[in-house]
């Protein structure tokens, strides 16, 4: 009997402890930026869901395509209807790991380099990616930051000939998430 009680407490403690290892946000920020001699285009999404498990390094984020905001309404329309086909593919996601999570001390303030790899899904196409970023720990909050490039053609996003010179072949993606303990 006594052993059972001890086991139950041990189990409860381990469950509680594993939850304490998760950090998340529902208001992360992703920006993408396309630069060509004809024009620069940028869009922002401030509704990014992201979670990091500091005990395993599991790192995920998910974004709704329709939540990207452009300066020009026409660009936003074309982005959703013609390029990203957001009715057909409403989400983009990343599912992967921080491979050097053991070198990131989430309890100690500081900026740590992060190696991230996993599967990035955009426009219904999933590709393996390996990128670098940083995690800045401050007052119990982990700020994740990464800037990388995504080739439009890799994700089978077709740009009509009329605007092919207005949109870069490679789009700069910036991820900025402020993860708080769950």
């Amino acid at each position, binding site marked *: 009997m006594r052993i059972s009680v001890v086991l139950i407490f041990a189990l409860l403690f381990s469950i509680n402890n594993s939850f304490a290892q*998760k950090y*998340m946000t*529902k*208001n992360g920020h992703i920006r993408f930026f396309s630069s060509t001699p004809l024009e620069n285009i940028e869009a922002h999404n*401030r*509704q990014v*869901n992201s*979670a990091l498990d500091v005990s395993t390094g599991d790192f995920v984020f*998910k*974004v*709704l*395509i*329709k*939540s990207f905001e452009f300066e*020009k*309404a*026409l660009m*936003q329309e074309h982005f*959703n209807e013609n390029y990203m086909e*957001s*009715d057909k593919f*409403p*989400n983009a996601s990343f599912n992967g790991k921080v491979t050097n999570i053991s070198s990131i001390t989430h309890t100690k303030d500081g900026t740590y380099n992060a190696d991230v790899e996993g599967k990035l899904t955009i426009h219904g196409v999933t590709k393996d990616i390996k990128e670098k970023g940083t995690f800045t720990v401050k007052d119990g909050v982990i700020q994740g930051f990464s800037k990388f490039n995504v080739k439009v053609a890799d994700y089978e996003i077709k740009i009509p000939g009329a605007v092919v010179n207005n949109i870069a072949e490679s789009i700069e993606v910036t991820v900025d998430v402020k993860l708080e303990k*769950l």
Partner: protein
Amino acid sequence: MKKWIKVLAVLAIIGIIAAVLVFKFVYNKPHPDFEKKKADYSLMAKELYESYKMDETAAADKFNGKVVEVSGTLSKVETSGELVIAVFEFEDGMFGPEGVRVTMLPNQNDALKAVDITGEIVLKGFCTGYNGVDVIIEKGSLVN
């Protein structure tokens, strides 16, 4: 002045006017005014959430990209940087409470903060979809 010069001048003026109109009303057309737009659907926030939970594809076909009016009792009002978010929470998921999140238009932030959240509230906005955790509505405004 020769007739063909007059014709050319008129054509040039028409061309310039057309270019200006296209620039103003097509290329530079304003974003929709979601505060003034009539709602495509009006329902309880919980019904909207449950629609996505039950059949995400069917709910997405119906609500994504539409102006949706939701009612219910708010669980909290969240602030994140410049964003003010009305949060309806309905159940606990792996990453905490899940429900419907309405990000307000900037001109609605103060009005929402002043609302007594213990009563029923009606909000309207642009539904961008379900991210596996919450239904997201943006450009939100207070209806009552």
